[in-house]
């Protein structure tokens, strides 16, 4: 292949997967996919190595899907696949970590030869069981599991599988729609790929794929070679489901690449915050990739430089049938742990710890008396709120910003139009960013009540309430999060960060998301920044005796 052809084909391949992701985002029914981009899409060679992946998407999906296609090919070898075949699974250990995520794999044929596979993953709103949340005791309680199977065989729909699926979920129409949307996005990728091969007069992706993988791997290795070889360990304690858990990692930098090992991490939990290894690998390698070679495209070549391991039956390598539904509550904390390790080798590049895990409460109506219908109109909303990110070595942290997740928040006005809740406050929490020469990002305070004074339910998966995001190099910790209830004539009542509570009649629920940690000595902070923070009211003098 000549150089120009390589350039054009690689460029085109990246555009194809980006378009594949756009089709998925446009056609998905689950709000979280459309609104928050909770998806991934990519193209693979016939050995199951990912050649290109859409940048659109959230890191938890992005990297766990990378390993999925090879697993499919072990069960359905290439020689058995036919045009019109479409494969499917939502197995947390073969896909992307919980039952809500469906991965669909489509082989692409040209001249009756399989030349590539497209894969896509998206979050389906409901898969039966207890529903999305951390409260299950094992994976069987969390809903329906479909092992790697045919969704279409030679173009014929697997009716039995679809019937079983539809009989086991709360919203069969939406679930079926999402599977079609996954199939459609792979089809659009396949069509675009065939066009590309025609245009560039290529027979297959073999030669191009080899170049992509080799160049990406070399570019990553070159980046790794710039780091001081050695072992770098870090440990972080977070709230866990009901008892604190320790996340412990050792990063090994060598000529072969970067190893991340989670030995020392707490054992599995009895509840649904356990993490299957592919999801651990996804977020751990994301942590590495944000700092090392972040401009190298994500593919099997660049990912092959990072090896993520964890002892069996620890929290981040849970085995079936452990409950894993809320695996994001732990998984989204892992980049902070990896960054902590890397801080020892890249002190000038690593941010302090941040709020990290999104705060995504589910608000629901309670069941009321028939006579009191107005106050008990049924509703469910699932807004997303973020805390502050850790201060960066050259910049303050970002206030109320999602990291590592890629989600967007939803509008309070829309939440109020689709539920009877009133969002009285959604504003920065002053003094919540960890002090430092560079300040951590601020968290926010959200104040909610029922418009008609009725009680309502909140289901919580919040962390960093007991254990805050820690500062670095003399920077202070971010302020921890808090959840409490305010009711006239009663003292404030704190609620735990996880599980379900009823907010009583007439009461207000207050959520305070955590702030990010600071970097460097607060007394060394630039005087102009100090006065700007005071003037803006982001910091109050009351809390800062030094000024």
């Amino acid at each position, binding site marked *: 292949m000549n150089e120009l052809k390589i350039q054009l084909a690689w460029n085109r391949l990246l555009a194809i997967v980006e378009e594949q992701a756009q089709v998925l985002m446009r056609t998905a029914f689950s709000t979280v996919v459309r609104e928050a981009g909770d998806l991934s899409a990519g193209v693979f060679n016939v050995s199951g190595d990912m050649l290109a992946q859409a940048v659109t998407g959230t890191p938890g999906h992005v990297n766990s899907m990378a390993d999925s296609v090879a697993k499919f090919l072990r069960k359905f070898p290439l020689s058995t696949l036919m045009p019109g075949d479409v494969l499917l699974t939502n197995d947390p250990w073969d896909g992307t970590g919980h039952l809500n995520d469906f991965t669909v794999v489509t082989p692409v044929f040209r001249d009756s030869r399989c030349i590539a596979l497209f894969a896509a993953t998206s979050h389906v709103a409901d898969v039966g069981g207890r529903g999305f949340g951390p409260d299950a005791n094992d994976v069987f309680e969390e809903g329906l599991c479909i092992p790697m199977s045919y969704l279409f065989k030679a173009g014929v729909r697997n009716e039995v599988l679809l019937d079983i699926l539809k009989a086991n979920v709360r919203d069969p129409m939406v679930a079926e729609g999402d599977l079609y949307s996954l199939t459609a996005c792979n089809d659009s990728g396949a069509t675009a790929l065939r066009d590309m091969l025609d245009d560039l007069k290529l027979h297959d992706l073999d030669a191009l794929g080899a170049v992509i993988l080799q160049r990406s791997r070399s*570019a990553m290795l070159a980046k790794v070679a710039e780091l001081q070889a050695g072992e770098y360990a870090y440990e972080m304690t977070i709230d866990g489901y009901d008892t604190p858990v320790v996340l412990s990692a050792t990063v090994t930098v060598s000529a072969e690449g970067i190893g991340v090992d989670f030995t020392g991490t707490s054992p599995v939990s009895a509840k649904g915050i356990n993490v299957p290894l592919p999801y651990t690998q996804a977020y751990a390698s994301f942590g590495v990739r944000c700092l090392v070679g972040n401009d190298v495209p994500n593919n099997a070549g660049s990912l092959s430089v990072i090896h993520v391991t964890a002892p069996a039956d620890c929290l981040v390598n849970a085995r079936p049938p452990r409950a894993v539904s809320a695996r994001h509550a732990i998984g989204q904390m892992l980049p902070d742990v990896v960054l902590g390790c890397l801080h020892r080798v890249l002190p000038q590049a690593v941010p302090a710890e941040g709020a990290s895990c999104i705060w995504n409460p589910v608000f629901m109506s309670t069941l009321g008396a028939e006579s009191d219908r107005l106050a008990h109109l049924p509703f469910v909303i699932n807004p997303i709120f973020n805390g502050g990110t850790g201060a960066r070595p050259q910049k303050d942290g970002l206030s109320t910003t999602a990291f590592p997740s890629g989600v967007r928040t939803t509008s309070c006005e829309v939440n109020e139009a689709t539920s009877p809740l009133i969002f009285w406050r959604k504003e920065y929490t002053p003094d919540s960013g960890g002090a430092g020469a560079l300040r951590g990002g601020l968290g926010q305070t959200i104040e909610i009540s029922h418009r008609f004074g009725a009680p309502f339910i909140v289901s919580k998966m919040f962390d960093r309430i007991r254990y805050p995001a820690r500062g670095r190099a003399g920077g202070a910790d971010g302020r921890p999060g808090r959840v409490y209830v305010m009711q006239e004539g009663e003292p404030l009542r704190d609620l735990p960060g996880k599980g379900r509570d009823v907010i009583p009649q007439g009461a207000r629920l207050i959520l305070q998301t955590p702030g990010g940690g600071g970097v460097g000595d607060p007394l060394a902070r630039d005087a102009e920044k100090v006065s700007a923070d005071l003037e803006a009211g982001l910091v109050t003098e009351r809390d800062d005796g030094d000024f």
Partner: protein
Amino acid sequence: MSIRLSVDIGGTFTDVVLSQLGHLTTTKVLTTHADPALGVMTGIGAVLERSAVSPSQIDLVLHGTTLATNALIERRGAPTALLTTAGHRDVIEMASENRFEQYDVNIDRPAPLVPRRWRVGVPERMTFDGQILVPLDQSVLTSALDKLLSEGVKAVAIGYFHSYANAEHEQQTAALIAQKYPQLSVSRSSMVCPEIREYERLSTTVANAYVKPLMSKYLSSLAEQLRSRGIKAQVLMMTSGGGLTTLAAAAEYPIRLVESGPAGGAALAADIARAAKLDQVLSFDMGGTTAKICLIDQGQPQHSRSFEVDRSYRFKKGSGLPVRIPVVEMVEIGAGGGSIVTVDPLQRIQVGPASAGSEPGPACYGRGGEAVTVTDADVVLGHLIPDGFAGGSIQLSAARAEVAMGSSVGQALGLDNQQAAYAAAQIVEENMASAARAHASEWGKALHERCLIAFGGAAPLHAVALASKLKINTVRVPPGAGVGSALGFLRAPIRFEVVRSRYMRLGGLQAAAVAAMFAEMRAEAAQVLMDAGVDVAAKSQVREQRQAYMRYAGQGYEIAVDLDALSTTDEAAFRGGFEVAYTKLYGRTIPDMDIEVLSWTLALTAPQLGQIESLATNDDDTDKHATGERELFDGQTWVKAQVMPRAQLVATEQYAGPMLVIEAQTTTVIPAGACLEIEQDGTLLITLGGRP
């Protein structure tokens, strides 16, 4: 009405076109940033003199300007305060709480236009259905305003929760300001952008408030200078929505003036499409920094209501300030003549979005620019002739282009200079093709049946190559491509769009309330059209479009549904309309799921009076170029190409590529296998050969 003047103020140049019975006189002068009206008057003076038209003969002035956009990008607007519902004063800074670039921990979110100390939470509260939960506290208001005034605030944005449903508190606040603080310039969210979603509504209102004093001052200064020059004609302003509006409406809603230049280009392409009866068109506008691509169906550019000003991070979605205004929907990517070409550590050629701009400019400008750009690639390939570039104002250096191409690209990849240049051109064309494919797919449209209409200084150089990548068969290059936006203003309709948010489930559709709301919206739009001189009662002149923004209950995004085609206004008709639109975009519907409406829009459109149909050639491009031959690199070898000045092309003749058509502002490349015909109005019509 026969003599019209069109003025487009851009970042570098101000273009002026005088249209007189279909005959065009054009000029380009430097934009005078300190007082832009000065440059405008210079340009007007020049065209008046050349055309021997007296100022009093001018019937209409059409104007578009990038001033509002620049003030936003450079943060040069008025000191602005925001009065908002207590508890929500950080809305415009918290934004969507997301990062627009996943792998970069050092991104910065755009700085809000109003600093936190000037964002005041006012005790008051509405619900989404317009009920008052907490009455407005006027005493807090006065003490806050006293303080803001003493700190030098000049403009105030008022944006309360759910004001689109009940504007009472915003009205009371505005009345209080008008009475006690008449020196403050006020923008109300219930007028600027009465739509649900507080971040987008407030962001739009604040941006409007921020540029309003500056734009009012400019517009009245311009009106004054036109008058003193003896031009008594009405002035209509070009908006981002692709239509013209009155000076009064423009001064009230200056945020609608952003992006008027590109909208003018789209208006030009749309008019060409209508005149040539082309159902499906792709307009392609490529300048120095960016390329813009727009889908035009049945002579109408794609419209939408969301736009981002100042995408400061590689033009990435989410890195700018969102504004909800009527816009011509287009995709813009960092690919222009000045886009810098580099080779990354993976040996991939990358083009843009960084641009060498006009200072220092591409390496071949010889003004100290070291970076190699798309323009340099065009020179190395032989497509750009160093003599006579930009009307002869810049002498290009082929040697500098060669050296820069070799050192930045060729050596890194082991390619000789012409191969490196060819690769760079291919990559930038591939980037534009990808953007076009993604845009078409996003809107559920196909590309290959379309005709590509190219304008802007760099577009005709790359148009045929882009068309070939998109399997498009015909390319049109209208005359005057260098002043495309100003030409577009002459062809744009007069248009005003009104929006309202009223949440409704189709299950509980209140048809009477909807009808009353539309009547109110129509009256508002009709007033603007009447002020612009349109006879609104003449039904044949005025086109009315009603749309509802609908979605399945619980989905994240609404889609626009045309209501005009519906025979009735009942639930079944609305559902039917939604399902047709949904299927077009997403290929299927969800039976039995409830549908909700969030917002409603109504637009009135009328053509300009005395609009010319012809694009007769302009008069100032007396080409110095001679006919001749030139070698072009086609990726394999050097081929001989015919060179023709555009002015010497003969309408009855057929020409075959390889060929270059040169004119003052651009060069059109016609490769081997393609052929060229000249339309009556001077448009170059290029047909690609050998394509299905």
